[in-house]
């Protein structure tokens, strides 16, 4: 849960601030709070998760109370309130995907990575979790990987093997979507 005592200094880069500015310009005068969700996505893409110091900085940037940021970050499922593995594999666990084997895929992932849902592998590379319907029911089982949410469809155990091998070799922040 929220750890209010983190004190790591967060400084947004000029590039990030430029992007923030572009987003704020999409809304009418005085409605900059609308930029909160998109800005939190950018922050998470930059730092890997949504920490309290980062949220506080966002609050200052948008002229909001910190609580207005916390209540949003805790409501939505996409903001990670604690660090995750470098690649968070999110498998759809809702009905239609379960009809075509999502539960088996999650079991396989757990066994393959050797960590439980929400935990991080010792090398810091991977986490996994079940998420609700990803609107890809015709191509299940499916999983997605942030921050660009690349998509992997019609999963099988061998596709998982292949995906994990590829990710291990990838140094880029955003995984390739060469496998689908």
């Amino acid at each position: 849960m929220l750890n209010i005592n983190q004190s790591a200094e967060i400084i947004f880069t000029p590039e990030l601030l430029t992007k923030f500015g572009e987003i704020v310009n999409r809304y009418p005068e005085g409605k900059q709070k609308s930029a909160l969700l998109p800005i939190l996505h950018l922050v998470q893409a930059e730092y890997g998760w949504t920490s309290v110091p980062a949220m506080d900085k966002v609050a200052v940037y948008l002229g909001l109370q910190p609580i207005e940021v916390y209540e949003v970050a805790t409501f939505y499922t996409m903001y990670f309130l604690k660090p995750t593995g470098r690649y968070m594999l999110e498998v759809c666990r809702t009905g239609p995907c379960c009809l075509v084997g999502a539960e088996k895929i999650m079991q396989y992932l757990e066994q393959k990575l050797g960590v439980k849902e929400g935990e991080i592998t010792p090398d810091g590379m991977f986490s996994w979790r079940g998420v609700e319907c990803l609107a890809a029911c015709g191509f299940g089982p499916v999983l997605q990987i942030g921050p660009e949410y690349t998509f992997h469809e019609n999963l099988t155990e061998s596709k998982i093997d292949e995906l994990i091998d590829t990710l291990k070799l990838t140094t880029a922040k955003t995984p390739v979507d060469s496998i689908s």
Partner: protein
Amino acid sequence: MGRKLLLEHINVPGINTFDVYRQQGGYRAVEKALKTLSPEAIVEEVKKSGLRGRGGAGFPTGMKWSFLAKPEGKARYLVCNADESEPGTFKDRYLMTYIPHLLIEGMIVSSFALGAAVSYIYVRGEMMPQIRILERAIAEAKNAGFLGKNILGSGYDLELYVQPGGGAYICGEETALIESLEGKRGNPRIKPPFPAISGLYGCPTVVNNVESIAAVVPIINDGGEEYAKVGIGRSTGTKLISAGGNLAKPGVYEIELGLPVEEFIYSEEYCGGIANGKRLKAVVAGGSSVPVLPANLILKTVNGEKRLMSYESLADGGFVSGSMMGSGGFIAFDEDQCMVRNTWNFSRFYHHESCGQCSPCREGTGWMEKVLHRIEYGHGKYSDIDLLVDVSRKIEGNTICPLGDAAAWPVASAIRHFRDEFEWHITHPAEAVKRNFGLAHYADPLPPVAEPA
């Protein structure tokens, strides 16, 4: 072959780019609307088309537009609902991925009709690839003079932005979506006031589904009356159906409304039957929120008539023996599927997604999930079945937004139609964790209805 009004050009290579889309006749609707039609005339065409909202509720789009308040000096907004999170539904993702300019074109015409100078497309945050696709499409359209200031020299200005969500099914509900777009938690608002009077930033707002907005393009190109000739009765036009579950050929299909359900499932043109040669046990016809029906009731109504893919026919029999069109999320279950397990899964979904504002929904969804879990895992009691019915009744109609109903209906309908299977889980707990109940009699032809004396 059924007529295609939305996906006609989907297989043309490069149709996701502006140039190819334009070569195929794209953006004609914008030219026609801005050069030859008044906003009122467009609303009139949409009314004549009989188009019903494709997001789930099926409310007539033209009528919704005509309710939009037009106070002096206040902005008006069009917000496109691309939150697509209803389990079983994946048509909007498909449309945005493969033919994004259809949505952009529809947004321009619709915004003009409603007098909006700024419009937003609210896309669920997980669809980051689609957000990138739409942003590129918007930039292309703007470059070509179809967005921005003085579009096509008409004097009409429009800016279009894409807004990502944060991962929450409830933000598909239109007032929760508006809250989220304002940078808040997705708690639905109490209505009235309706968004048409006070929506985004307190201004009059229309929220429409991706597919509804895309359908405005053929309506303007061909005229509302032509559009209304497609389909059957009050179910006019075509509908995108997301076909998933145990089908031989799952995917997104554009159908003419009125297509027999049997043809949709079994013909080679559509789903090609049940996967792996299995038999059909049950169908959820319109996304997880609508009542589930056993195979015999989805293919034929209790009167022995063929059931059709139309708003009226799918609802034939009400909640006793019918279902709903919903969002067109068509989920097929084969003979190996367990209805208890699926119902538990859906209940977990609604419990997870309840925003928590109303006690019946917040507590009731959790309670149903717990009870279903214990039935599925062999610890159920006989009284649990009636308890579930009771809880679902107490949620239904007693909440701020329809998520409560959406959570109650799948449970109530599963028990109504598959009660034997629930009871078997309770009477045979050891067996129920090892094997499934199977097809049982759920695909048997129904006995003929007795003639009233």
